[in-house]
């Protein structure tokens, strides 16, 4: 689905992503775990085409995407959804209008937008808040709205950057199970970035352990957790 070949990114003199190669298989939940500062968010911004790598190549399906620019780049970004730790919803818009945003920028007619927004809020089980203002929502409800917005343009891939790190354990579980169900139902690929072992254990099939901008180890979740080879993986296991 998404293939990274020796992707590198440097900020000033700091090598934040160091020759990372990854193969994210389609129709799967892929986990990326690492301590704070390991380079996870930067890696996601690269995957999601918000940043250009200094070197390396990235393919979405068969298509090379890291070299795109202009209109093509925007269209490719529209095929990718993303959710964040702090939700990053637009406070100037109510729930429905947040979900409508990606459809508006794609130029859909209003009637179609309204229908689709209804479906999406249904899908993320937040229909009762359709007309609500954001400050009337709890964290978990906001993340549901953010998920609806991220899925609005029918992306093939959904990126989650610490999507449950601001939520309490119970809400975390409900959001994780929503993501898992949506992945199955919509047959999309999900990439989950987190520093929490529980998140990986709960929904991922495969995991890559990130340390100082490189992949310390990767493989099936059960193998990596049962027999961690890298010190980074062992450390994260102990922390959990």
């Amino acid at each position, binding site marked *: 689905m998404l293939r990274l070949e020796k992707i590198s990114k440097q900020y000033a003199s700091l090598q934040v992503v160091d020759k990372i190669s990854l193969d994210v298989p389609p129709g799967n939940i892929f986990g990326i775990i690492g301590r704070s500062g390991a380079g996870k968010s930067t890696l996601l911004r690269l995957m999601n085409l918000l940043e250009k790598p200094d070197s390396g190549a990235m393919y979405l399906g068969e298509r090379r995407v890291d070299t795109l620019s202009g209109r093509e780049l*925007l269209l490719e970004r529209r095929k990718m959804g993303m959710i964040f730790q702090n939700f*990053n919803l*637009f*406070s100037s818009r109510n729930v429905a209008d947040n979900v409508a*945003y*990606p459809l508006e*920028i794609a130029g859909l007619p209003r009637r179609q937008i309204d229908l689709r927004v209804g479906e999406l809020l249904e899908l993320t089980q937040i229909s009762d808040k359709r007309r609500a*203002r954001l400050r009337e929502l709890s964290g978990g409800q906001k993340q549901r709205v953010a998920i609806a917005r991220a899925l609005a343009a029918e992306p093939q891939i959904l990126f989650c950057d610490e999507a449950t790190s601001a939520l309490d354990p119970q809400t975390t579980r409900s959001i994780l199970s929503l993501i898992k169900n949506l992945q199955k139902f919509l047959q999309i690929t999900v990439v989950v970035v987190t520093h929490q072992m529980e998140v990986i254990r709960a929904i991922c099939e495969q995991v890559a352990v990130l340390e100082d901008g490189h992949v310390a180890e990767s493989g099936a979740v059960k193998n990596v957790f049962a027999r961690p080879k890298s010190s980074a993986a062992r450390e994260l296991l102990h922390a959990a």
Partner: protein
Amino acid sequence: MPPNLHEILGLLPQATLETIYMTFASTFLACLLGLPLGIYLFVTSPAGLRPQSAVYNILSRLVNLFRSFPFIILMILLMPLSRLLIHTSIGPAAVVIPLSISAAPFVARVVEAALEEVDKGCLLAAQAMGSTDWQIVRKVLLPEALPALVSGLALTIITIIGYTAMAGAIGGGGLGDLAIRFGYYRFRQDITLAAVVVILILVESVQLGGTLFSRSLLNKR
């Protein structure tokens, strides 16, 4: 009615209307120039949508240069422009042009500051969804910054009211002109006082209106 009061009441309405006219016409034109400039400053700033440090630094310096210029001097320098555009350099209409141009850099900074306060996460989300820069400006930046922009507009109007009073010194008309012509040259402190009171009332109403409007926008969220 004592004769003084009668005289003051005869002079004030005309001068007040002139001040209001100069203020609103100048604010409108200053925003017309300053809003795009402020947006452009933000977009090219280091933390903006499309950082361009060379462009940003040059524009930023120019804006600072204009802003650090004493208003009254700028005004005199820009008077020929009024003569060129509306064929007079005297009266309320003539000062609108230098006023707008002097206030535009101020507006640009106010706009830039308002946009800087927009949550960076929102911009990141909008970019991740494949928005064009223009879509981000129109559908995210400006709506998100609207309460701050409204406060900024009030601040701009208040600053321009102050400028119009100074413009009175060079024949601009309005309350400042009244205060200078009567109060200063003819020792009529009562007229100066009346003009000052009206200016204070104008400033306070704009301040109050701006605060209430901005707050009501925030409460809708």
